[in-house]
């Protein structure tokens, strides 16, 4: 694969990740958000596969397949199942920060990510280095989603976005994320999702809905 083709494709996949992250802030329907998340998973897997092809590393190829299976397959399926059990509440209404402001904040976070990641880019002038700020922006956006959504499912999606962004930053900076490490991270993420699934159903059973903004008992 030629260098310029690699650069273009890499920018495409990382850009797709950033775009899907922003779209999560824009869309309201929960089912659409899950689809967008799945698309981001595919984009992440593509990034890893690209780097694997460029480096010629079989291990990274395995990692790419793993990422595809987990983040584009298993996790969206789990989320859809949770959504099915959720009942009528399928729209994220009244987020804490309204949509316009959220999008502006996302833009600001992207700029912050680019400013912060300057030294990293200066250190690694290859195409992967140039893509790091975008991945960092994905992480920050995911954190923002986690903080500002009301429904538990949206928060879960935000957490997963954060994790995707961190994985992307890791792959882009080191190009050698070990298999064991990736396995470990994946297991952690899977566990979190499962736990939150159970938690969500419990909250629903106790309160009838999963709007956690109403929960204010978590203090002394």
């Amino acid at each position: 694969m030629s260098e310029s083709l690699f650069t273009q494709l890499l920018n495409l996949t990382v850009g797709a990740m950033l775009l899907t992250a922003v779209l999560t802030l824009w869309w309201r329907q929960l089912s659409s958000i899950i689809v967008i998340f799945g698309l981001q998973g595919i984009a992440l897997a593509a990034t890893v596969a690209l780097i694997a092809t460029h480096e010629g590393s079989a291990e990274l190829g395995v990692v790419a397949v793993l990422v595809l299976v987990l983040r584009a397959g298993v996790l969206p399926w789990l989320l859809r199942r949770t959504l099915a059990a959720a009942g009528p509440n399928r729209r994220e209404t009244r987020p804490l920060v309204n949509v316009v402001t959220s999008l502006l904040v996302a833009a600001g976070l992207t700029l912050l990510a680019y400013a912060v990641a300057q030294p990293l880019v200066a250190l690694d002038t290859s195409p992967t280095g140039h893509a790091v700020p975008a991945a960092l922006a994905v992480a920050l956006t995911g954190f923002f989603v986690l903080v500002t959504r009301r429904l538990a499912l949206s928060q879960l999606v935000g957490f997963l976005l954060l994790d995707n962004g961190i994985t992307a930053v890791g792959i882009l900076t080191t190009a050698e994320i070990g298999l064991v490490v990736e396995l470990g991270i994946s297991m952690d993420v899977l566990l979190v999702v499962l736990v939150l699934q159970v938690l969500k159903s419990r909250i629903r059973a106790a309160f009838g809905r999963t709007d956690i903004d109403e929960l204010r008992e978590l203090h002394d």
Partner: protein
Amino acid sequence: MTALHAGLGVALGAGSLTALAGLLVPRRARTTVVGAGLAITGAAALLAGIAAMTGRSASFAVPDLLPLFGLLFTVDPLAGVFLAITGGVTVAVGIYGIGYCRGPGDGQGHDHGGLDARGVQAVLPLFVLAMLAVPVAASVGTLLLCWELMALTSLLLVIAEHRRRPTVASAGRWYAVMTQLGLVAILIGLSVFAGHAVDGSFAALRAAAPTLTPAVAALVFVATGIGFGSKAGIVPLHAWLPRAHPEAPSNVSALMSAAMVNLGVYGIVRVGFDLLGDTGAAWWWLLVLGLGALSAIYGILQAAIGTNFKRLLGNSTTENMGLILIGVGAAGFFGTAGDLDLAALALAAALLHLVNHAAFKTLLFTSAGSVVQATGRRDLDELGGLNTGMPATTAAFGVGALAASALPPGAAFVSEWLLLQALIHGLPATGVAGAIVLPLAVAAVALTAGLAVATFVKAFGIGFLAKPRTPEAASATEGPASMLVGMGVAGVACVALALAPTLVLPTIGSVAGATVGAGDPVRIHGLTIELVGTLGATVGSLSPLMLTLALLIGTVLALAGARALATRRAARAARLWDCGGGPLSARMEYTATSFAEPLQRVFDDVLRAEHDVDVSHYDESRYLVQTVEYRRRVPDRIEKRLYDPVLRLVAAWGQAGRKLATGSVHRYLGYGFYTLCGLLVLLVVTR
């Protein structure tokens, strides 16, 4: 392979195998195997320590074991002293633990199952290994790692019996918090020091010491002094000692008091004399001396008026550590004044007292443990009359008490004599500061000695002599043979140190001299200790063996004289004087509380006992008294004045912080997000 390498290797191997055995061996044989393993580990460490003290040294490095730094070990003569002490104590405690851990522990006849559990038996050897590793650590990282390992294992052992008594959990909490605070202080001090050096190894620190400014050097000394002093039980950071010792199992208390607190002194000596070298200022050492004097007096005062058996011994540890720090402080003070020979003498006295204290404290704690196990009572007011049922334990405690009260022919008499000699001869060399401080130090040592006499007369007399005050004390019997053997080992060590300190004094003297940078301060002439003055003339000499022999001859003479001159009639048993009112009951004996009451009154300004009197009347008439209840508590005044306000401040701060926790999950998540963004912005702006 030299004796040093062999000893260290065997100690490490035996310790690890014993820890493994503690996990795997079935319950019936567990304590025996672990006890034997501990004895082997201790003996090997003792051998290695002696080899190191006589001049051999060695270095080991395990570079890649941990990220950021490897492990670095160096055995030098100073480390050898502490290796030997820990090893010796472990031998006695290991043998003692065979029988002790199998018994009902400190409970009241509950089923055994506490101390021979896997957790306790496997952690004991790890504790010993950590204590052996701390003196030989040769880099900041290694020292901190081994220190924390020692703290964690000792914490696990202290709370070993938490299921039986609720007070154990509270004692464990105090211990854990104070140990961690001490660790933080040591970390700060050593990190600041290492920051000015090339890397964290002690060799680099030594090289960097001359480049430190006085303020930085003072900060390092004071911070490490606080951390190490807390471990040694020095006032005002002593609060964990009298809490942890009564609640821990007795063999663990013996290990802690006789081996672990020494490492606090080790830290101060290592940082002050070795790492910081000649950059010391006089006020540092005067501070050490002052705190040592305060701890000595305060510790023995608390012991003199206390009635909990093991708490009394714990307070006595504070007192002895205070005496040792008086010696260390005097050594540093004389060193900064230029008299290195006298400094070596003072340090030798301190190290000898360390060795003596390890021997007699082991003996005292092991015999106290036997008593508590046999009777289930921990209060002196409920014991008594044990000499009929437990004669060997009584004799052992008597030897230990004689040693602890610094009377001849006890062990601590020699080290206190040396300490007093060092203080007395320091007057010309140290100027006005010395003229003010040294007499006060001598007075402090003297008051401590007097109060120690009162304390141990009380402990031995009330606890073991006269009539038993409770049925449990009346029916007490000796424990299993292994406990007696363990006590015997410690007793033999005490007696040997008392009669022939010349066996250990030359090596300790040379260690002290090497640490301070002078020659051997003490000369041995046969079995006599001689102090050599500046002109080569002997300025003082002491021969404990000769003194003991003279006492024995005197006793024989008195016996012979009495037999010769007295009548030949046989002795008649008679009633005690009871004013004609019938035989005396045990209720009429003096108790420990009443014995200490004059002392408590004399020192009332310091102690401030709290009295509560509750009078309850009959329902029918307010003029008829039904019961009168009197309660007296002597709180630890330093705790009330120093700890309570600090704890209240921290609690108030925490209460104020609760306002941050409104209950909203979004708020909590938001805290994290805003902090992260804020930090990133800061990063961008300040670059």
